[in-house]
């Protein structure tokens, strides 16, 4: 089944909210982390906040992909289900490669 433009537009709106939430959390952690880095260079807090902020930043598009798979599955739009799962599989290859090289 091919999803109508209006349904896609509604989905686009909801995916937009994922981006806003991810960016807000990430930008807050990075700003506080950067300030802490300048004020308390010896503390572990800045490292934690900076790495956490960057991790949330990277997790945002990943979350968008996961949310889209669920939504497209619900809509039974198989074109999107297949392409989105393919993208997620590629990102998983990267994640696993990165985690095993640390």
């Amino acid at each position, binding site marked *: 089944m091919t999803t109508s433009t209006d349904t896609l537009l509604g989905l686009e709106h909801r995916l937009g909210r994922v981006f806003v939430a991810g960016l807000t959390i990430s930008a807050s952690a990075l700003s506080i982390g950067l300030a802490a880095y300048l004020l308390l260079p010896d503390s572990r807090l800045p490292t934690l906040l900076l790495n956490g902020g960057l991790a949330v*930043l990277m997790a945002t598009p990943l979350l968008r992909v996961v949310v889209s798979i669920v939504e497209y599955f619900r809509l039974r739009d198989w074109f999107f289900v297949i392409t989105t799962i393919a993208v997620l599989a590629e990102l998983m290859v990267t994640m696993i490669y990165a985690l095993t090289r640390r």
Partner: protein
Amino acid sequence: MCAGVLAGGLGALLGIGGGVFLVPFLNSIVGVPIKIAIATSLMTVIATSSAVSAGTAGRNLINLRLGMLLEVASAAGGVAAGVAFQHLTERLLFMGFAAVTALIAVLMLTRLDRRNILDAAVDPGTLGGRYFDEESQRPVVYRVKRLPVAVTASVAAGVISGSLGIGGGILKVPMLNAWCGVPMRAAAATSALMIGVTALASVPIQYAHGFIQPPLGAAAVLGVLVGSRAGLRFAGRARSRSVKLLMAVVLMLVSTVYFFKI
């Protein structure tokens, strides 16, 4: 931080991420090693992508169907580049920068007045789209042409994104516009959505290899976020012709700088 703001503004405006400006700035002016500049830039590409996509969502400019299809191709390129990144030499990266930026600038200049807009009654097909254009105040319809070309170019864009840290939109926007019939603004919005996932296919590997310094990464990301807000506000009003001209001039400059570094 200032570089981040400037790069973010221009990047959001052009839908290509700020990398094409940020990498040369961090590398040539601030003096950061090229690989760290590239990885930092790629991190900001994710931020630009999320910020622009949040802003353009609901205006129907993003072509989700085409975007997801090409994302499969560009993420594959991104994974390959991420894995190969630590083995690439600086000289090779400089050459890549000079060549890619010059190529795109020429492509942009030869297509300055191309519009790619059909009559509003035309059926856009499965992958085409329609949206309301703020510049001309009327609905715009387009069809997607030469899909295999778009898929191939997306793989290349993914490889370039992951190895040069420039988003990959730098290749996708002119390609979608010039070869595949997608209007500039829809191409930019679709590309902006794609570059985040493309960058995410290589950034975690560079992060694991230590090419990202968290404080520098944070400053760049915050700067780009501030800049992309300003750029997005301007993007709805700017004329496509001047957007292309600005893009081409900046690209020629970057190309010249890196040509002399080889």
